[in-house]
């Protein structure tokens, strides 16, 4: 029999104890990216009967959060452009997708960071009207269906739209609240991937393919690589998310951002903010490429196409063909992949995937055609927004753009764009009733603008600078795609592009003289041969 000395046995036991106690002190196996485990807060046990009840619980600790949100565009949907004093924001602008918001709040405000914005009476001062969950949800269970003015379905399943027979399941608010965390591609994307009313519709460079993209779709968000969230670049402080479609930064001369320096003044979401103004260091032609950045936005070479993730984006939306019926009913026509290309309540669409952008000199200035601005129907499309920029203003770069084209209703007598009442469940909204006059009458009344009662359609264009879906460097746009005739930058003036440009006179004279010289020497040679034969 093997005898183990008592001392050795004791040592063994001690060692076991030591291991056990070390385990108890180890950090939890799941690494939390926060110092607070929200499942441990009794305030979040619920049950919650509404969104604002959750918010009250949140702001009982995060005392300043709601008031911070109150100061942002995400809350006000209003933005005063300091450059041209235009009153912008989702509330005020007109686009050539679903057109406008004012008479359609309950539908549109499904994407508002608040609860209950159903009309102009919404109380913007109430802290509990802020929706914390829509941005901080990590479960993916939190949904705000259109039609409920930004409220989720709580308690009983709800039929939406009423009478449709489609029921939406309620959200367990306590569960969502206990699992809150930092924003993610999913939480931002819940609204921003679906701008314009559906996946990928509006931007072209933002759609659900960015929820977990490959490096080819977005080299920064690459789910198996850098795995950036939206907030990695759009780094917020005090709930104010930097980056703007109303006052974008077209040209950032400031170099890489040093932490703490100029943070209030500069946009941290530019390429330059991380990559500096001379970002090509290892490439073969790094000096030449860096010099390109004096004229060409990073995005122009590094985003070869938008809508690259398999989700199409709308390129054309023609409202003028809406209103057709089949057997007295609304209908849709779908393309091979099952996407709508016609819908009775919206008209015709042209969709695009892997779309090469169009290019423009752009200095960051955007001027909107707002309600009340005069609109003339002519051969030239009306610019829903006009971009500033020129090769010589010192503020512009050549930028890639999605240019959204369409036809939308306008008032041919007052010569203004109009704000039709589209969404809703009444007898004037267009989507249900298909009557433009009624829909525009209601919409314009809500907007407080005159309407002649006459409806016509005007061609429109709208500029969307492309900045997301940055490709890996080996997939960036090659030299010859611009340095050639009829290349990507055909029509971009103010720069001499070798391979595209030439002085036509020099070319013509050069080739003619060279050809004459050639003919001359050939003639001379022939004469010499003939002469020598004779001799």
């Amino acid at each position, binding site marked *: 029999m093997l005898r183990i000395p008592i001392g050795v046995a004791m040592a063994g036991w001690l060692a076991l104890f030591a291991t056990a106690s070390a385990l108890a002190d180890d950090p939890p196996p799941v690494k939390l990216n926060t110092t607070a485990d929200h499942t441990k807060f009794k305030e979040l046990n619920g049950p919650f009967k509404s969104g604002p009840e959750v918010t009250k619980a949140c702001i009982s600790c995060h005392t300043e959060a709601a008031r911070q949100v109150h100061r942002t565009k995400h809350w006000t949907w209003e933005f005063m452009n300091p450059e041209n004093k235009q009153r912008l924001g989702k509330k005020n602008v007109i686009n050539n997708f679903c057109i406008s918001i004012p008479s359609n709040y309950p539908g549109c405000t499904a994407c508002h960071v608040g609860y209950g914005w159903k009309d102009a009476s919404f109380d913007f001062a109430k802290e509990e009207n802020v929706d914390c969950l829509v941005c901080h949800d990590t479960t993916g269970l939190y949904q705000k269906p259109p039609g409920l003015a930004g409220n989720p379905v709580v308690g009983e399943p709800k039929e939406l739209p009423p009478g449709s027979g489609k029921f939406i399941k309620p959200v367990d608010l306590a569960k969502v609240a206990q699992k809150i965390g930092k924003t993610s591609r999913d939480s931002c994307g819940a609204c921003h991937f679906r701008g314009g009313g559906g996946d990928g519709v509006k931007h072209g460079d933002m759609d659900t393919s960015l929820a977990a993209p490959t490096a080819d779709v977005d080299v920064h968000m690459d789910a198996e690589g850098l795995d950036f969230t939206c907030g990695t670049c759009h780094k917020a402080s005090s709930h104010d998310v930097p980056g703007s479609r109303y006052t974008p930064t077209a040209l950032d001369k400031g170099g890489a951002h040093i932490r703490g320096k100029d943070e209030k003044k500069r946009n941290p979401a530019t390429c330059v903010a991380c990559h500096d103004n001379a970002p090509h260091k290892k490439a*073969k*032609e790094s*000096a*030449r490429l*860096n*010099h390109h950045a004096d004229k060409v936005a990073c995005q122009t070479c590094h985003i070869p196409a938008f809508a690259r993730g398999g989700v199409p984006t709308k390129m054309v939306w023609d409202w003028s063909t809406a209103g057709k019926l089949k057997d007295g009913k609304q209908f849709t026509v779908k393309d091979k992949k099952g996407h709508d290309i016609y819908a009775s309540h919206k008209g015709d669409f042209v969709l695009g995937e892997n779309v090469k952008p169009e290019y423009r000199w752009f200095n960051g200035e955007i001027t909107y055609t707002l309600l009340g601005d005069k609109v003339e129907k002519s051969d030239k499309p009306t610019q829903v927004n006009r971009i500033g920029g020129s090769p010589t203003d010192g503020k512009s770069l050549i930028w890639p753009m999605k240019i959204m084209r369409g036809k939308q209703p306008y008032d041919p007598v007052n010569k203004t764009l109009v704000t039709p009442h589209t969404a809703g469940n009444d007898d004037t909204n267009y989507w249900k009733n298909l009557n433009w006059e009624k829909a525009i009458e209601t919409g314009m009344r809500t907007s407080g603008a005159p309407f002649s009662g006459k409806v016509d359609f005007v061609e429109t264009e709208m500029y969307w600078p492309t900045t997301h879906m940055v490709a890996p460097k080996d997939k960036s746009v*090659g*030299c*010859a795609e611009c*340095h*050639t*005739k009829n290349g990507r930058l055909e029509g971009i003036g103010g*720069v*001499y592009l*070798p*391979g*595209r*440009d*030439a*002085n036509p006179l*020099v*070319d013509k*004279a*050069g*080739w003619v*003289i*060279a050809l004459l*010289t*050639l003919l001359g*020497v050939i003639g*001379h*040679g022939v*004469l*010499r041969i003939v*002469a*020598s034969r004779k*001799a």
Partner: protein
Amino acid sequence: MSEKIYVFKKFERFWHWSQAALIMFLMLTGFEIHGTYRNFGFEKAVGYHTVAAWTLVGLWVFAVFWHLTTGEWKQYIPTTEKVVAMTKYYLSGIFKHAPHPFRQTQLRKHNPLQRLAYLGVLLFISPLIWITGWLYLFYDQWAAWGLGSLDLSIVATGHTIGAFLMLIFFIAHIYLATAGHTPTSHIKAMITGWEEVE
């Protein structure tokens, strides 16, 4: 009766042929960059053109040194002597088997028209190509050199004019290489160094 004289020394022949190859390659890649046709692809053409240009610069450093140290630069001093005779010869005499009006020697290896043509290349075409080419290469440095207001289209057009002049010279030069004492005597001389003269 013909005799042979040694006109082109080893370095001179090496200079001539390597320069010829480089210039042909520069024209080939240059007109591709210009957008005239597609061969290597724009990016590669730019890379090759740049390497060939720097190689030619290197070659010229040696050539200039050689010309200065050997005194051979004097071969390019222009002269009006026999210019008219040479022109007449090319325009008519050559067809009638008239004697070549110029007799080559080691000290005067170029006929007066050659002297003028090469001097033109040296004083006009080459500087135009070199200056615009260097500016083109260092496009990204213009602002640092205080040339910020210079327009690329001017530099590029100048470079293109230089290229066309070089092409025209090239065509005439190749043909006139056959217009020596015999159709091949100039070419043989450029290869072996020995030229047949009358």
